[in-house]
């Protein structure tokens, strides 16, 4: 055993340099694979149509131009699509977080008949894949006169995000000691006061996580919008970009300029709230 000890200590030190090099080589190689497509997309978006798909590929455009961006931004409806996406995403996120935090509060702070059953039904929502519901949801939207309307999108986006958000928020609230809540109850505070003044501020990290995930899902959502929206005036960005590519099959510079403008809010949200992502994912992975 004593003879082993120095070797054990020496080996990590000798191998440390090689291990670090290996680590960085692999990480950088992987990062190149992840980033190259984006770099090529950015390059193409600054490329005139004549130079798109020229060989050899140009990562630094030989004839850089911002024409694609001015065309995309100036196109008759781009601002409208952006606005539609913003309206749908912001309202559905706010509503979903409000309603699911209310449900989470009820599940975490009350005992009542049917609690387990209702929670299980909500959880079942996690296993029902959204795309499978497209057909009946289309018919429901038609019957409720929600086809071709932003309200319809908001309605289904809220519904689709309730399960995960409630699950996330309930887990967080349940892990917060209930003493403060009971103290406020003794002082005669109403349930709404305890929810609004105590539970919501306490659950801030989980709320941030839920907000970000709901925002991203809404901003990127495609199948439901594709099914419910026919009138171009009510298109959201993903739908508009997909249609754009169909119509201007070869205008890649334009398609990517529009895509990049659409991606910017997402990247900002992600960079600003990065740490909440990790927290939220942990909650899902560890308790899931």
């Amino acid at each position, binding site marked *: 055993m004593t003879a082993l000890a120095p070797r054990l200590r020496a080996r990590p030190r000798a191998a440390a340099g090689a291990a670090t090099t290996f680590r960085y080589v692999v990480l950088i190689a992987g990062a190149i694979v*992840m980033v190259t497509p984006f770099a090529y997309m950015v390059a193409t978006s600054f490329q005139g149509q004549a130079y798109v798909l020229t060989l050899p590929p140009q990562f630094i455009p030989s004839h850089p131009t911002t024409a694609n961006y001015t065309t995309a931004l100036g196109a008759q409806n781009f601002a409208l699509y952006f606005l539609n996406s913003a309206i749908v995403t912001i309202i559905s996120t706010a509503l979903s977080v409000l309603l699911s935090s209310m*449900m989470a509060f009820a599940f975490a702070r009350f005992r009542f008949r049917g609690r387990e059953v209702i929670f299980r039904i909500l959880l079942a929502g996690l296993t029902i894949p959204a*795309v499978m519901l*497209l*057909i009946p949801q289309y018919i429901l939207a038609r019957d409720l006169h929600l086809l071709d309307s932003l309200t319809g999108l908001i309605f289904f986006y809220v519904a689709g995000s309730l399960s995960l958000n409630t699950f996330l928020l309930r887990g967080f609230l349940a892990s917060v000691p209930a003493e403060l809540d009971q103290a406020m109850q003794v002082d005669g505070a109403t349930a709404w006061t305890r929810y609004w003044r105590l539970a919501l501020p306490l659950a801030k990290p989980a709320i941030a996580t839920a907000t970000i995930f709901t925002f991203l899902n809404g901003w990127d959502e*495609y199948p439901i919008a594709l099914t419910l929206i026919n009138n171009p005036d009510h298109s959201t960005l993903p739908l508009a970009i997909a249609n754009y*590519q169909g119509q201007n099959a070869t205008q890649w510079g334009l398609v990517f300029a529009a*895509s990049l403008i659409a991606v910017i809010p997402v990247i900002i949200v992600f960079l600003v709230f990065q740490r909440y992502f990790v927290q939220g*994912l942990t909650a899902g992975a*560890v308790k899931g």
Partner: protein
Amino acid sequence: MDRATGPVPVARSRRPRSSATPYLFLLPGVAIFVIAIIWPALQAFRMSFYHWQIMAGAISQWIGVDNYVRAFRDPAFWLSLSNSGIYMLATVIPQMAIGLFIAVLLKRRSPSQPLFRVLYYLPVITSWVVVSLLFKYLFADRGLVNFTLHDFLHLMHSDVSWLSERGTALIVICLLGIWKGVGWSMMIYLAALQGVPESLEEAALVDGAGPWQRFRAVTLPAINPATVFLSVMLVIGGLNVFASVELVTGGGPVGQTDVVLSYMYTQAFRYLDFGYGSAIAVILAVLVFVLAVLQLRITRDRGEELA
């Protein structure tokens, strides 16, 4: 457990006052959930037994299990099912393995860690529409991939027309799935790895375990919940592939790359055969459910053996 049973102790004496309260908090959310998710799920099941008429006022005809029989005899359905299965098999394990590998490399905190984390996560937060169009562009006949493999690395004799054949088109769609999903697995594993107590690893080190042994005996069991979570979510997600196929190949050439949901979508929204589309959705839902239960059961049994 229930409030209504047994004598009411002092601490609970104020409970009856709030009896309706939790229901009021649940009401708006549950109402929307039932109307927009549960009701449509039941409705899909019901519609699958009809020759469903989409026109308002038209009478739909009850045809029993005819839609299901039709699916089982429909070669295009089987092709789409096998494409979904191939996609699931080809994407789940690489996403988890690569994600775990990168997470292990990134586990130690360093100044470059946040940067790598963002770079690997970038595809995850980008919408399916954008990355699908991007891959269509990369794998175009005169695209970056052909150039790299043919003209630059000389790995191929000639350019490949990736999207014009089933096999190569499926490769593109699978690569897209892996590329977009790796960052998500990485994040989950990163979070799980940071929860592994260091004392455990140190104990193994003192016992003279090598890095690989330590990883297998200590780290892997410790992150098992994350592995179970990921495998269940990714299998479900894999069988539900839709947007990327719709946007990269549109199911083409001639339906060769259709997956179950794109086939369902075509049946319902192009041919207006909502009953048949619903039957396909129900078959997939049952399949997903059975697989998820099986996975949970297998991983639980294995977890008990380890414990």
